[in-house]
């Protein structure tokens, strides 16, 4: 008595927008390649149901200064290249990074040095052929003071800048628009806020093809479930045809994961936590994988081993 089971497929009416990072010389920039994310017409990696034209990509996070406050396993594995953002970016590219995410910081005296920021961005662009993501220190005034000159100096390179938040997006969006860049719209783990910010940015006439959204990443053990569900909901809304949720999603995995005690602390923790260095990599990898399953299009990581593991996972998940 053979049974025939019909494969259950959803009929989605919408798909994620395609967003292109970086511009090659033919498109007005200097990048060696352009990276397209988005375009999914189904839930993550469900190839039996719809097209997934572009695999998610992994960005490596670097800083504009030596990261004294990063966990020891990270400093050990990267070594001296961390002292020079350009060298660091070059190394990341060699290791297979698909994007570079450069985080700008305040200088020793706590000031936002826009000129220096622009120089660092220029140097990193010179050292790598990869498209670039640039984030400010996360304070409204400093972000504006640094990202505006960055946008100007990198004009035409189609970098992604952020973070644009509900309270501070206009200056950054205007600078990105004027210089042909992308913006990252960041909201605190809430579907409605994410959608609202997309609407507000779009109301400034920013083309939607130039907006990435950051739903705010919670690391494994530190709120990942909230991020996970918000991302699933945003993706379901996007596939159901809600135009204002159809932006590709970026998750700052490395930063959040390596901030947690499990990754940061090697001494005086329970033996059941296992080896420190390995734990740090696994914590970052599991965070990244879970968020990829929820719909992440770009994950940023810190550890080279994570880069390798997540990339091979994406490769396997893209094999239909």
């Amino acid at each position, binding site marked *: *008595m*053979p*049974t*025939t*089971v019909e*494969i*259950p497929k959803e009929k989605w009416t919408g798909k994620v927008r395609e967003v292109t990072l970086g511009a090659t010389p033919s498109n007005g920039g200097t990048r060696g390649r352009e990276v397209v994310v988005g375009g999914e017409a189904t*839930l*993550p*990696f*469900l*190839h*039996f149901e719809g097209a997934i034209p572009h695999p998610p990509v992994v960005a490596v996070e670097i800083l504009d200064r030596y990261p004294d406050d990063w966990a020891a396993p990270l400093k050990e594995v990267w070594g001296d290249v961390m002292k020079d953002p350009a060298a660091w970016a070059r190394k990341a590219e060699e290791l297979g990074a698909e994007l570079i995410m450069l985080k700008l910081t305040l200088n020793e005296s*706590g000031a936002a040095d826009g000129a220096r920021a622009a120089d660092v961005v220029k140097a990193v662009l010179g050292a790598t052929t990869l498209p670039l993501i640039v984030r400010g220190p*996360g*304070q*409204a*005034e*400093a972000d504006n003071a640094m990202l505006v000159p960055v946008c100007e100096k990198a004009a035409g390179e189609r970098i992604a800048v952020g973070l644009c*938040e509900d*309270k501070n997006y206009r200056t950054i969006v205007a600078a990105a628009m004027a210089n042909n860049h992308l913006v990252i719209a960041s909201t*605190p*783990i*809430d579907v409605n806020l994410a959608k609202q910010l997309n609407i507000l940015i779009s109301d400034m006439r920013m083309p939607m093809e130039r907006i990435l959204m950051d739903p705010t990443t919670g690391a*494994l*053990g530190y*709120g*990942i*479930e*909230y991020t*996970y*569900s918000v991302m*699933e*909901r945003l993706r*379901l809304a996007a596939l159901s045809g809600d135009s204002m949720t159809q932006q590709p999603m970026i998750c700052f995995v490395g930063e959040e994961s390596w901030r947690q005690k*499990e990754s940061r602390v090697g001494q005086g923790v*329970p*033996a*059941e*936590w*296992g*080896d420190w260095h*390995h*734990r740090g*990599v*696994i*914590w970052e*990898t*599991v965070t990244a*994988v*879970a968020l990829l*399953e*929820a719909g992440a299009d770009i994950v940023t990581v810190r550890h080279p081993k994570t880069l390798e*593991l997540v990339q*091979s*996972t994406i490769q*396997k*998940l893209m*094999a*239909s």
Partner: protein
Amino acid sequence: MPLSGLEIYKLLPKTNCKECGFPTCLAFAMKLAAKQAELSACPYVSEEAKQALAAAAAPPIRLVTLGTERSFSVGNETVLFRHEKTFYHEPGLALRVKDTDPALEEKVALVDGFSVERVGMNLVMNALAIENASGDAGTFAGAVAKARAKTKLPFILMSDSPDAMKAALEKEGGMKPLVYAASDGNVEAMAALAKAHGASLAVKAETLDGLAALTEKATAAGVEDLVLDPMPRHLAGALAAFTQLRRLALKKNFRPLGYPIIAFAGNGANSPEEETIAAAQAICKYAGIIVLDHFDAADVYALMTLRQNIFTDPQKPIQVSPGLYEINSPKPGDPLMVTTNFSLTYFSVAGEVEGAGKPAWLLVTDSEGMSVLTAWAAGKFDAEVIAKAVKNFQVESKINHHKIIIPGFVATISGDLEEELPGWEVLVGPREAVDIPAYLKLWQ
């Protein structure tokens, strides 16, 4: 298909007699729809209504319990996405050990005793899979007996041979194991064994058609507690197969595939890390039992944490953990502010302080995820709660002053708080988070 509250209401007596313990028939119907009440609580429900409701209420995925003393249950899930309701039953984590493994007893003891505490919960392994790698019934039964002497964990007995399975079941100790697995050639024999020993039965086939055929044979043979292995060949295949099974059960109410799924994370993995990644996917996407081939504390701890996170009830308001938060690396002399643990409240306060670039201590109280005004109105953010947080989080050991800034909305509690915290000065901060930067500029 589950019925809505109004649909169920139409089947109830509509007398509002309150005997079910709910104030109205509609309230009861809504609780029934949310599966938070039992129909038997209504003494006046008609036979016809009972049948209609029972059909709608039957769980689309059967609840299967393994083990006795250290039992765990999986299945009974009602949604594809956790935000739609919640995921109810955490997948069981098992370690696979071969019956030929000389270190079998050590591994059993390790799995049995592993326990790690996280946010007040003890996270443990749930089962042991013993594989008949030797192909020999005696070796298999011997290994099972040795393992049983070391643990009360439920077993997953893995053999394609009914003879070996029979021998192992006799040594297993009657602790409701899972028989793995019935396939095309042995389903009758395996089902008979499972039935005779009160065991659950896993069925394996590479196609959904094949699986459905097997479950129908097994149920015909009287075995109801089934577990499905769709035998995926790689990561993407597992995601597709598990998603299809879950959708068929929930959206099509397809009974032959309405059972929990077992995943073998090590199958197809080229390294322990790849196995951990496969297990992480299985936790997110629909596995009921996950079998690992290697045991590394860091990996297992990460997986258990993910499992705990994904299976948290999302219906509860999004909360941050209560505690003393450091913003912009504060020094002992920097201001101390207090707010509630509703995530959006926390994010807006922390965001403003962070954005202002001012160092500050932010004390977050346990106010059950309510915003400041709601928590205050409900007595969850009063002087007592705040004073308790000051003590519990040892605020006095971190700062060198006795000033605490409370939200402007609860100015009224300042007197009570000064009584609860003798020697402290209570300052009333702004009502809106946006005014915090300006307020902090004036501090000291």
